[in-house]
């Protein structure tokens, strides 16, 4: 189980310009719940448990109680052969999980690691306020930690030491 504080770098992306001119550029909820997002929410990609998973982890957002599990099967060549998610939560976290699973299949571990929070927010699409960015990024950070959480001892991950994700401090 992981719990990560995004606050430090989240403020630097996307939202501060909106704060500066408060009301005019606030994201509209109409956009947040655009059809594309609701489609993923209602008809998610690879939702469920992956019986043949080689790597898996779970994370939660204590602010709202959202829980996301990610299970991966890495092929012999190291590529993400299958990526599944499960859990419960708001439209944003569940839709972003679906989008992310779809996006990550076929990627190498390096490509997954290089997939940044900014890219995740871009993949999601509609602009989000900082609190909702946490919802959107929950599946992304669980994916990052799942990559370093092999399910069997003999698959210990050499890359773990080089993990360059967000600092693992407690969420407040």
């Amino acid at each position: 189980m992981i719990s990560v504080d995004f606050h430090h770098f989240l403020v630097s992306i996307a939202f501060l310009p909106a704060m500066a001119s408060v009301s005019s550029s606030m994201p509209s909820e109409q956009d947040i719940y655009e059809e594309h997002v609701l489609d993923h929410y209602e008809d998610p990609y690879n939702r469920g448990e992956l019986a043949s998973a080689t790597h898996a982890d779970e994370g939660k957002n204590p602010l709202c109680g959202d829980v996301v599990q990610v299970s991966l099967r890495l092929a012999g060549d190291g590529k993400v052969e299958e990526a599944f998610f499960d859990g419960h939560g708001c439209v944003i976290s569940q839709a972003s999980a679906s989008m992310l699973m779809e996006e990550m299949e076929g990627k190498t571990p390096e490509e997954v690691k290089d997939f940044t929070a900014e890219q995740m927010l871009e993949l999601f699409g509609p602009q989000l306020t900082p609190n909702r960015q946490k919802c959107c990024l929950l599946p992304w950070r669980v994916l990052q930690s799942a990559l370093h959480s092999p399910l069997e001892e003999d698959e210990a991950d050499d890359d773990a030491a080089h993990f360059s994700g967000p600092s693992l401090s407690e969420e407040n």
Partner: protein
Amino acid sequence: MPLDPQSIRQDFPILKRRLPGDQPLVFLDNAASSQRPQSVIDAMTDCYENFYANVHRGIHTLSEESTAGYEAARVTTQQFLNAASQREVIFTSGTTAAINLVARSWGDAHVTADDTILLTICEHHANIVPWHQLAERVGCRVEFLLINDDYSIDTETVAEALQRLQPKLFAFTATSNVLGTVFPVQQWAQLAKENGATVLVDAAQAAPHQAIDVQDWDADFVIFSGHKVCGPSGIGVLYGREALLAAMPPFLGGGAMIDRVTVDGFTSAELPEKFEAGTPPIVEAIGLARALQYLQDTGLNEIARHERDLAAAAEQQLRDVEGVNLFGPRQSEKAGIVSFTIDGVHPHDIAQWLNLRGIAVRAGHHCAMPLHEHMGLTATARASFYLYNTLDEVEQLVDAVKQTREKFARSGRRRRRSSISSSSS
């Protein structure tokens, strides 16, 4: 006389605020923090513009005037609580700081590994975590009174627990910030006294809505925050029985709380300065006093009745909406708080969708995770009413909740495969 919310609304400049899409603001997040009338803003501005200086220090006009304003605020607060003495009123930075002060100072001095602290499951984290921390330091036990299916706690349950556990401290909220349940403070305090327990009442949700008489309650500690009573953020009040406060060691060390400091040590100041180390929230105290006067001028009983009417109307209408679940006792002794969920819709999505209609509610665990866990929920949405809310706003809330349900109801939509490539561009 029933209060007139339309006339009250004229006193609160922020209620004129328009949200994106030119939506008027429907502010229903008062249990988290209330708004301020112009008179409070003016009182604080007046201090900053005309007589601000540090208190209890300078031998100059501004410091004398600031000190007079600050100490007058203490008297106003004393009268608001009907405390016996000004020395029983300590200004802190808020409810959380006040409870931590008691846990650190009184707790460390009096609680041992053999002792029990008794709480209710309805406490918010500010009245739970300081006691868990105390338990980590001294090894005491922390026990919780649970709620019944009707969201109340029986007197018999309280009496039985007090008798069985013989707690050193019974610390409870006067009003649940999630359920709105109003607990019988006087009765519980009496039962606690009979069993030798010290009593701490978290009045953060009670002070905004009811006249408080700490002598009637006969509680040892009573605590509330400025920002929930139409006052500023950054200030809270700790009432403590004088004999208890006098016997407690100081908590924070620094300026103002000392009598004398030498290279070898210090002696602490008299009450209340003993617990007010450093520069206190001077302007906030002045604003708080003006807010308390505003509430008293309006009439706390009238405010409470108005909120109950609004909450009752909201509950009655929401109860009829399919898929809506309400949490909290029915009417009678209930504060103006309505917590609810909608089947199949996460509370964050409820709050976000209501916000589109200009309606501000809280969604989440409301800093009361043990209570939500006890009820088998991860989160709820909460509408909390105050003196400036109207029946018209209740209608808007109910309409928006109905729309929320329609918006997020599963409609059998399928993901459009073509969106995969366009979404990542």
